[in-house]
């Protein structure tokens, strides 16, 4: 079981979500984050004074899937979230030690 964490541009969320639904993905957790990588911030002016804006709003998607699904999920996210411009984001893959469905107590792959 793997956890896939994708940091993407916020306006791409709907496209990614729909793309994942098309390949049978059933759920995700989404959070609004801010960050920066190689994409630098920029300078703004407020009432005559300059200030640095480093952090850019991004959307983080977290999905946990069985091992067989990992490749198709990664491909879908990469394809749907790409604009070709700086700031498209990154995807991270982690191992998951255990999963439990709270309502039923199911564990492992049954809990996906």
């Amino acid at each position: 079981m793997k956890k896939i964490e994708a940091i993407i541009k916020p306006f791409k969320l709907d496209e990614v979500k729909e793309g994942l639904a098309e390949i049978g993905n059933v759920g995700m957790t989404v959070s609004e984050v801010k960050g920066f990588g190689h994409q630098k911030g920029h300078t703004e002016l407020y009432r005559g004074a300059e200030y640095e804006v480093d952090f850019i709003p991004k959307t983080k998607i977290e999905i946990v899937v069985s091992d067989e699904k990992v490749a198709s999920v990664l491909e879908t996210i990469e394809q749907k979230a790409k604009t070709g411009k700086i700031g498209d984001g990154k995807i991270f893959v982690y191992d998951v030690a255990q999963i439990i469905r709270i309502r039923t107590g199911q564990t492992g792959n049954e809990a996906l």
Partner: protein
Amino acid sequence: MEFSTEMKYVLDSFWLLISGCLVMWMAAGFAMLEAGLVRTKNTTAILTKNITLYALACVAYYYVGYNLMYGNGNDFVGSGLMMYGTSADGHSLISDFFFQVVFVATAASIVSGTVAERIKFWPFMGFILVLTAVIYPIQGHWSWGGTSLGGMIDGFSDFAGSTIVHSVGGWAALAGVLLLGARKGKFGADGSIHPIPGSNLPLATLGTFVLWLGWFGFNGGSQLALGSKDDVDAISAVIANTNIAACAGALAAMVLTQLLYKKVDLTMVLNGALSGLVAITAGPDYPSMNLAILIGAIGGLLVVLAIPLFDKLKIDDPVGALSVHLVNGIWGTLAVGIFNPDVALFAQIKGIVVIGAFTFLSSLAVWAVLKYTVGIRVSEEEEYNGMDVSEFGLHAYPEFVERQGA
């Protein structure tokens, strides 16, 4: 007991000034209402537009518009009127100018809501300049300027401007939105309609209440006189009717949304109140309160039906300005023809059509010139990032996003 000429002068001018102040306050109402119904990333943009369009409207009307609207000129356009001294009706001319100028600003502010979240700032201001300096004043010359376009719209009766102000703003907005297109993501390729919820319903509600209060000046002041018992009686009826029409519109929207959607929709109730106000504006003086309730209620029903209808027509109106001001501007004007025995329905229809056609076509021409020269729509990337950061470099809610430290 009749007042002396001087007392009448004082009271009439006073009423115009106080009412004008209330109408100016409507600019705050529009700003709050629109800010509440757009997304946070476009809030600075809409607020900036609201204050600058008000400012531009007043200045443009002072230098140019007022002179095209009044004065003897010809039937089509005026030739200028003194701004100082005493009016023909015996009040201060400049108080009259002040009262008129805030009406122009009101018409202009109707446009900003419909084109919100994707219009470019400077071309928008260019359009407002032409609307307030030329388009509005010319059609105003035919009605309040007294020429009835050479008799073409004789008998047309619009007490405070359902057509002359509200539907004029609506037609100008419609012309703009047809050339501008919908916001990205609003309409799916398969014809689906995606709601884009407003970011701040408290502001939208506050804005509606502010507009409601301002409307007492908008309609009440249109009596244009305070200096006699008859005038005060008329003003009293006007304000009481204005208030109750708004109430009826809100209640009608409340009931209809409950029936249609199984839930009362706050944004529709707010629009419903405003629709009642727009609808009664053409004739708040003659109806009984029962009739005012009916007219306002129908306004509320119309707006609830019109909003999804515009969506179906793929016309994206973030604040419902077309449904509130255009649709109910027309309804309110027709209502006078239907219910007021002194006014012919056909005269109302003629006025609506003539003024509507002129406003829509001239607005369409101006928007088209802007679109095909400098462009009126921001780029896709700017729209996604939000107009606040793209056009103004100023977040309305910076702490939500990326302000470092402090």
